[in-house]
């Protein structure tokens, strides 16, 4: 069995023995060209990665974008705008000065609301009396 195997081994070794002639200069030229191409590809890859990284960094950090002025677009405090309804004004009408009532009375008279004017004056007088 062992002898048969050795015979078989020798047979396949002998069958496969063949010499190949190759031009080493051509082979080396091809090899150098391949190495150069590989180096160029690697450089291109690194440059592309660096470019993508820079773009991503700029996007994330918003570097270079003008500083936005928020107050141009909305008012910080909305209290004054929203709280101007008549029922929300937290000021007692008596606190208004006499000129305000006078102006209001003249306005109502101009508009033809005579009785309303009288009522306003009476209310003012009554409140003054109370205070």
């Amino acid at each position, binding site marked *: 069995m062992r002898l048969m195997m050795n015979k*078989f*081994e020798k*047979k396949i*070794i002998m*069958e496969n023995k*063949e010499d*190949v002639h190759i031009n080493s200069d051509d*082979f080396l030229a091809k*090899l150098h060209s391949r190495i150069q191409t590989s180096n160029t590809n690697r450089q291109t890859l690194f440059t592309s990665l660096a470019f993508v990284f820079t773009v991503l960094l700029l996007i994330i950090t918003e570097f270079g974008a003008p500083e936005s002025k928020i107050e141009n677009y909305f008012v910080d405090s909305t209290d004054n705008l929203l709280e101007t309804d008549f029922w929300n004004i937290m000021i007692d009408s008596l606190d208004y000065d006499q000129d305000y009532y006078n102006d209001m009375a003249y306005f109502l008279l101009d508009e033809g609301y005579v009785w309303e004017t009288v009522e306003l004056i009476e209310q003012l007088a009554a409140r003054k009396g109370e205070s």
Partner: protein
Amino acid sequence: MEKDHELIKLYQNGNQTAYDRLVRRYLSNTVGFFYTITRDKMVAEDLAQDVFFKLFKTLKNFKFQSAFSTYLYRTNLNTVNSWFTRNKWKRFLHLDQILNQQKIDTSVEKGWIKKELWNAISNLPKKQRSVVVMRIAEELPYKEISNITGMSEGTAKVNFHHALRTLKDALNDE
């Protein structure tokens, strides 16, 4: 003539021509190795290109712990194993070659067909295949094979014996 390790040291110090000299020294042996297996000069040359391209990159970190020839054989073996795997898929997909295959099978009874032998080798398990490739294509002793593949001499011998038996059956050798 400078020794391999001296040339590698020169190459590691930036001397490109030292690498060229190393390639010239082992070129015909490497191409011959691949030609024995592939039976195609173009493919053999391409595989040799792959090997020396890999070595161009890896030799910069060579640690001088083994002979360059052992390192080269190991690279050759890895390259040829990858080629076997690629080729197996190619053969599997080339369904139009089934008829030719039948013709080859009948002619094996009359004589040797090298292509058929290497097809049978490519179907062996990886360990057996590695030993057979080193033994048949390079005629290396078991000690060298054990250095290259990392298995013990005894394991290499056993693998080779099993591989030969399988090949003998596959090729219907009397």
